[in-house]
């Protein structure tokens, strides 16, 4: 019983690091631009399919595929920004949200049409097997994925804090008018932010493909999980994001281990609702 | 209870994280007067305003409106008690027509059968007759300031809080806006509290002034006293002069 629980917690924490990485993308976009990309989870799903296609075609390992999918998602993010997001910035909030809901449906539908709704998985992986810590089994691929996620979270944090582009993003988030006056072109900054936030899903997608399969509806799940992480973490705190990722990952993993796997989102939803109720607006961040 | 007192703010403190945007501020607004709250950028004027109108809750202090403690009251209940406000950045409802916007405010005290008359009255008072069917998103700033004023007045307040409502208006627009405010104050006996940047408007309108700097009160008095106060000149006027 306890052993199963600890096993579940380990799996959950490792998984949670990937959720944190996905949520970081949302967090950057939401924090800087105050734009909600409802389709973010579907970006992950899309990245996973891309990883599958490239991994199969080039006989690459899943964790290698982000080398190609990252730039692809970066460009995809730019296209989406200029085609949709940039035009809805001054719209009514519902309409802005609805546009990205449209994008979400579009991507899911595209996956349904292209891959006939069938789950796909990669066969090749040089990260095989598992290792043991204190008698508990840890899947090597999950462990590697978690470590890589943490590295990228740290890298993005560094980028945001230490580079000029990062400073421009933060300036744009603090005061749009002032930032514009100081020569920050907010359209370009926003585009960069959106593209970066989107491209992070490429890494998450590649990592997920190393031990999971992908299916079109998975996007909704990833989206919800990562928004839940963000709700827990609030904006702007990297350690908070990692902790929140772990909590959500563990909740999901324990639900699957001990209760009905059908309701894998129930525990997460419970946390989400509790957070929404108990953490009023101030704690969501600066807004 | 002091019947001449409209609003009493005592020891108001509002904190954002470690920053004290408003620190231990006290002042009192008398019934019927035009009162001004001034100070340089970031002095905490708008924050104080938000606390008074209920859009944020202070960490410490008390706000008493007409003898009732309203410190923890929801904004809409404060409005029911007789308080209304406008916003620094105009927050009209862009997709609604002028008369519909005013109507939202008028419902505060009017039922379905009398609301239309109230709307007509307010639209006439604020000179919005020509644009009443227009959608707010199509209107210019000067008109929108009047729309905001009209919808606030439609709630039939006793105390009206005006947040930088002269900002962005040209000289002619400002003069007519000030006339309108004087008229409201005199004829409808509505107490006005204005937060202002524009010295022209403050000095021309107000009877008493409180000066804020970095969240604290640094001076209180009549326009004449304030303009000769050394502290104020240093903290506020002086800064502006050197800026230019």
């Amino acid at each position, binding site marked *: 019983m306890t052993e199963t629980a600890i096993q579940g917690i380990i799996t959950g924490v490792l998984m949670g690091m990937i959720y944190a990485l996905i949520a970081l993308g949302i967090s950057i976009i939401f924090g800087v631009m105050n734009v909600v990309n409802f389709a973010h989870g579907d970006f992950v799903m899309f990245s996973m399919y891309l990883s599958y296609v490239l991994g199969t075609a080039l006989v690459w390992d899943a964790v290698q595929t982000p080398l190609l999918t990252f730039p692809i998602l970066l460009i995809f993010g730019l296209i989406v920004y200029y085609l949709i997001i940039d035009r809805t910035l001054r719209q009514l909030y519902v309409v802005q949200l609805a546009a990205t809901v449209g994008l979400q449906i*579009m991507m899911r539908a595209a996956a349904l049409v292209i891959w006939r709704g069938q789950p796909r998985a990669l066969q090749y992986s040089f990260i095989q097997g598992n290792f043991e810590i204190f008698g508990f089994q840890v899947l090597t691929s999950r462990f590697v994925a978690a470590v890589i996620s943490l590295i990228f979270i740290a890298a993005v944090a560094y980028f945001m804090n230490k580079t000029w582009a990062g400073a421009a993003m933060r300036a744009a988030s603090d005061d749009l008018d002032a930032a514009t006056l100081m020569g920050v072109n907010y359209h370009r900054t926003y585009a960069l932010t959106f593209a970066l936030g989107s491209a992070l899903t490429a890494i998450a997608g590649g990592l997920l493909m190393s031990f999971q399969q992908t299916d079109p509806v998975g996007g909704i799940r990833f989206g919800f999980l990562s928004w839940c992480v963000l709700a827990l973490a609030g904006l702007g705190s990297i350690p908070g994001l990692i902790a929140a990722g772990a909590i959500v990952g563990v909740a999901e993993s324990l639900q699957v281990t001990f209760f009905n796997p059908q309701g894998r989102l129930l525990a997460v939803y419970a946390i989400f609702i509790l957070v929404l109720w108990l953490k009023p607006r101030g704690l969501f961040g600066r807004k | 209870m002091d019947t001449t007192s409209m609003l009493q703010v005592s020891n108001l403190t509002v904190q954002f994280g470690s920053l004290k945007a408003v620190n231990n501020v006290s002042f009192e607004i008398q019934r019927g007067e035009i009162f001004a709250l001034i100070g340089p950028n970031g002095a905490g004027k708008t924050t104080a305003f938000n606390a008074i109108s209920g859009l944020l809750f202070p960490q410490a202090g008390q706000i008493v409106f007409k003898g009732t403690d309203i410190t923890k009251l929801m904004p809409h209940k404060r409005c029911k008690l007789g308080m209304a406000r406008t916003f620094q950045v105009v927050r009209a409802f862009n997709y609604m027509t002028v008369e519909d916007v005013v109507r939202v405010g008028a419902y505060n005290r009017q039922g379905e059968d009398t609301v239309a008359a109230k709307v007509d009255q307010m639209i006439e008072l604020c000179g919005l007759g020509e644009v009443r069917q227009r959608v707010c998103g199509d209107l210019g700033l000067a008109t929108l300031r009047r729309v905001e004023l009209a919808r606030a007045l439609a709630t039939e307040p006793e105390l009206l809080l005006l947040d930088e409502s002269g900002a962005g208006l040209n000289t002619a627009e400002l003069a007519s806006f000030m006339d309108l405010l004087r008229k409201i104050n005199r004829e409808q006996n509505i107490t006005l509290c204005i937060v202002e940047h524009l010295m022209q408007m403050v000095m021309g309108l107000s009877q008493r002034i409180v000066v804020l700097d970095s969240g604290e009160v640094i001076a209180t008095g009549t326009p004449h006293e304030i303009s000769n106060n050394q502290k104020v000149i240093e903290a506020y006027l002086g800064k502006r002069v050197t800026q230019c």
Partner: protein
Amino acid sequence: MKRPKLLNSKNIAILVVLAIAIVLPLFLRTNQYVLFLATTVLLYAVLASAWNIIGGMAGQLDLGAAAYVGLGAFTTGTLLIRFNLTPWVGMFIGALLAMGIATLIGIPLFGFKVKEVWYALSSSALVEVFRAIFMMWNKVGGPTERYLPFSAEGPRSWYLMRFNTYVPYFYIMLALLVVVFIINHRIRYSKLGYSLLALGEDEDAVEVLGVDSRLCKLKALMIYSFVAGLVGGVYGCIYGYLHPSFFSTDMSLEVVILGIVGGMGVTYGPLLAAIFLVSFREYLRASLSGMFPGKGLEGLYLMVYALILIVVALFQPRGIAPLIKRGFLKLKSFVGVK
């Protein structure tokens, strides 16, 4: 502006449409497929019109329509199966239950100022959560379909609200649509309507005008969930079984799309959108099922839907209703009617 009189030229047009709708089944009696399509169009129009109150007026992106539809269907159906209670009564109990649950969720949600994306997420998660609950709850739901009792003829058929033709369902939905239209119209030109429209744009600004935004949103949510629950009760009878797949994210999304494409805050917008889009979807389903076997088909119509939603959001954020209105006015001046 006073509430427009119920009998002006516009509403006469509506009455004409209504009259056509009433006699429509007489001509289509034999064509069950078209009748089913018409019923589906009306069903979605009812849902989208109800959504218009919370989404179009109050500006809350509610993605939970299917949660209330599912609750209504399961309550009505279970009452029929277990207690032999007629759906004519059961649907109201189901609607009350849906409204009750919506209220229980809504009070803390609105109370703590949960809005915008957080509201959208929480409502969309609601659908998934109820599906999971009903999937696991074997006494009422479970992964296998539960069939409702059926009787082909006579009063028993009416008691069970189960018919071998779509005509009665068509009229039930039509009646619901008329009721929802009247509710919409009354709210739109009342204190609640003006307050909702304003708070949909700026909640703080409306609060300082003496509007209790939480209460207004809660009222909107209650009306909306009640109607959706009512529709759910009939929905179960139309399909003749209960299944957790009734809690469908796609249905919720479709309702939102119809609401936005039709025109937010416009009473008749969702009906127009439903007529065009739902028929189009069914047309695609019918004509392309041979070409694209399997799940790909579902993707195709979703893609078209999504494209329309994005295009409308970008270029016609007020929906197609204003376009139709302009066209109507042009037609009027063309015909020469004043």
